[in-house]
């Protein structure tokens, strides 16, 4: 089945090759400042979950290495972060340093490799994995992995606070404390992803005191888990101790929507399909729990030589417009969703060209701009940052999506029509146009577009309005028609009965006449 879908998609690609090719040519001529064709087939999913050719929303523009920036090559960089001032912070883990890079991503502003502790002593990082800049205070939060600590410091490199392994009863003292990723929320609470617990991120107060764990994943309700639950219910305490426990998979990366305060987590574990991406509110409740089994990334995993290549989301980034950008290490693809988790664009692949990444070794994704104009992907294997730029098509889709998600359906009509002109496969455009026409009272058109989008629920809604509109306009004709039909039936019946009677009479009459012996 999976292979079938794959080959089917490929065949479709071939079939529409001419159309796509011409579209791509026009696209690259019209939309691109200066770039070659992307080294992969651009696709999107239709409502049946089939991969169909699509227009590119983003194109890889350039790839930036450490040497390009005038320093030594990056060594297994671990994280990339963009602060409020659109400056980038690149965690060069293998070189134990953090680079501050300007907004255009072509100049290093500062290199952090030594920090001043509060007591005046100097300290160096050891394999740092994550960095975060608070939008409120401008403080820098560093997950200093192999030093088993997290640092909070000023922009000039003076450490304000050092967070080490908490001495709390809640934190199992047998566990190590190796921070992977770090962020802080609007209240100044610090969240640290550790790689050795499934309870969620370790949460610290603004003063560095350990509060507890935050936002653990749910256990996938597999048959084993349900069976375990059943046996545990009837097992004795003694037996329970020897029974295997159901634990969730741990999420290993996160990002915060600084405007709304939601923390988005991503899970790269290949052994689960539950809670791959969560949207967690400050209380720790997952707002995406209603779609905890939503398939993020590719809908089908590929099988090749006995290995399953399944989407493995290693980083997540929330754009300034609320879009959710997920980075898949398996295929080197970035999946961009809008804030309602509807897929917008897919870009990237594995390979050597610009726009292609080392398989399984991409580290981070970042976006820049109010409409997500640029996407940055950090490839730890190559030690480069690839800059994707938005195409005209991409920006129209973003405009339309923003208006549509904001409830401005009629305003979104123009951009959606423009989207359809450029890509007739883009289903969300049909939905958007259907909604716009519905709000404008053009129910017939709304029905037409709902039908094209195969959205029978929307069609039903528009049809209901269309029907009452039609009835109101044609009520007189309808009533006259009904009366006429009923009258017609009665007249026909009456007529037929008379014919029948006449036929009977004439049938009987000759009998009498023959008996009488006279014929007329």
């Amino acid at each position, binding site marked *: 089945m999976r292979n079938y879908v794959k080959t089917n998609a490929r065949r479709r690609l071939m079939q529409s090759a001419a159309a796509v090719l011409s579209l791509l040519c026009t696209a690259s001529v019209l939309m691109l400042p200066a770039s070659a064709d992307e080294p992969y087939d651009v696709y999107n999913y239709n409502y049946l979950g089939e991969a169909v050719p699509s227009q590119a929303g983003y194109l890889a523009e350039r790839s930036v290495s450490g040497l390009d920036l005038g320093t030594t090559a990056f060594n297994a960089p671990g994280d990339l972060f963009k602060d409020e001032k659109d400056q980038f912070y690149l965690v060069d883990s293998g070189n134990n340093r953090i680079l501050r890079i300007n907004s255009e991503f072509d100049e290093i502003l500062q290199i952090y490799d030594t920090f001043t502790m509060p007591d005046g002593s100097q300290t160096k990082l050891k394999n740092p994995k994550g960095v975060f800049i608070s939008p409120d205070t401008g403080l820098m939060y560093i997950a200093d992995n192999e030093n088993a600590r997290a640092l909070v410091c000023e922009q000039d490199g003076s450490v304000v606070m050092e967070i080490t392994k908490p001495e709390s009863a809640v934190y199992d003292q047998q566990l190590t404390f190796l921070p992977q990723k770090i962020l802080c929320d609007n209240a100044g609470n610090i969240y640290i992803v550790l790689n050795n617990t499934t309870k969620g991120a370790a949460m610290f107060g603004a003063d560095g005191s350990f509060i507890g764990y935050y936002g653990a994943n749910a256990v996938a309700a597999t048959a084993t888990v349900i069976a375990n639950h059943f046996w545990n219910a009837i097992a004795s305490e003694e037996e329970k101790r020897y029974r295997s426990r159901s634990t969730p998979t741990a999420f290993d990366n996160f990002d915060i929507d600084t405007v709304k305060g939601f923390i988005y987590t991503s899970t790269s574990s290949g052994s689960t399909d539950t809670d791959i991406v969560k949207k967690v509110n400050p209380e720790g409740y997952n707002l995406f729990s209603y779609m905890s089994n939503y398939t993020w990334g590719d809908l089908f995993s590929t099988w090749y030589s006995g290995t399953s290549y399944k989407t493995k989301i290693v980083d997540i980034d929330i754009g300034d417009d609320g879009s959710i950008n997920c980075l898949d290490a398996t295929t080197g693809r970035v999946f961009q969703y809008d804030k309602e988790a509807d897929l917008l664009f897919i870009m990237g692949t594995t390979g050597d060209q610009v726009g292609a990444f080392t398989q399984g070794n991409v580290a981070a994704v970042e976006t820049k701009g109010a409409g997500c104009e640029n996407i940055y992907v950090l490839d730890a294997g190559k030690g480069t940052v690839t800059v994707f730029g938005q195409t005209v098509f991409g920006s129209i889709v973003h405009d339309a999506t923003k208006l549509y998600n904001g409830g401005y359906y009629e305003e979104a009509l123009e951009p959606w029509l423009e989207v359809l002109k450029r890509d007739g496969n883009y289903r969300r455009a049909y939905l958007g146009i259907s909604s716009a026409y519905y709000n404008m009272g053009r129910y017939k058109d709304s*029905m037409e577009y*709902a*039908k094209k989008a195969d959205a*029978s*629920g929307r069609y039903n809604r528009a*049809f209901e309005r269309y*029907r009452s509109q039609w009835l109101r306009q044609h009520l007189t004709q309808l009533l006259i028609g009904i009366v006429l039909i009923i009258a017609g039936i009665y007249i026909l019946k009456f007529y037929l009965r008379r014919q029948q009677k006449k036929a009977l009479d004439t049938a009987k009459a000759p009998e009498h006449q023959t008996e009488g012996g006279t014929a007329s």
Partner: protein
Amino acid sequence: MMDLTQPQWVKHVVFHPFEGFEDLRWKKGGTLKYTAVIIAALFIALIAFDRWCGFQFRPLPDAMFSVVPYIMRSVIYFLAWVLGNWAVCTLLDGEGTMKNIAIYSSYALIPYIVQMFTQVVLSHVLVRAEGVFFDTVYYIGIIWTALLLFNAIKAVHQYTFTKTVAAIVLTLCAMLIILFLAVLFLSLFQKVYVFFYSLYTEILYRVRV
């Protein structure tokens, strides 16, 4: 008394669920031609129900259409029913011939077919919230057909009530067995075919080389 033409027999049987089939049997009415027409109508009704409904009620996307399941659900199921019923009731002292079982059973399907077409027509003027009308039509059709089918079997074999129930249950089991065997044979023959075909290609290859 009761010298009806074939179309009149259809009407009589459908509108007299309890006496109709006895009359049909007594007067030796009914014809296999009508059976063919009714099964064809069932086939069309099944497709119409999935394809021609108003879009708000269409259960399947256009891209997922295959004609095979519809042939299965009309012709094959009907043949299996007739065969199974004949096989069971021959052993249970039933008086019906295979021809009569086919005729009587097919006549009993008419309300079911009509209810499907009614739903198709209604679906173009109703919205989802008014789905209760569909349920009503559906239940009327299905109960009517069940009643007719029961009395058809009862009349064609001259059974009592309990014996008819037993015969129908056994017929359903027989249908399952027939379909199982059919699938088994199909896959077996496919394997045999593939075997001979590969033999053929192999020989052809040797001849050429």
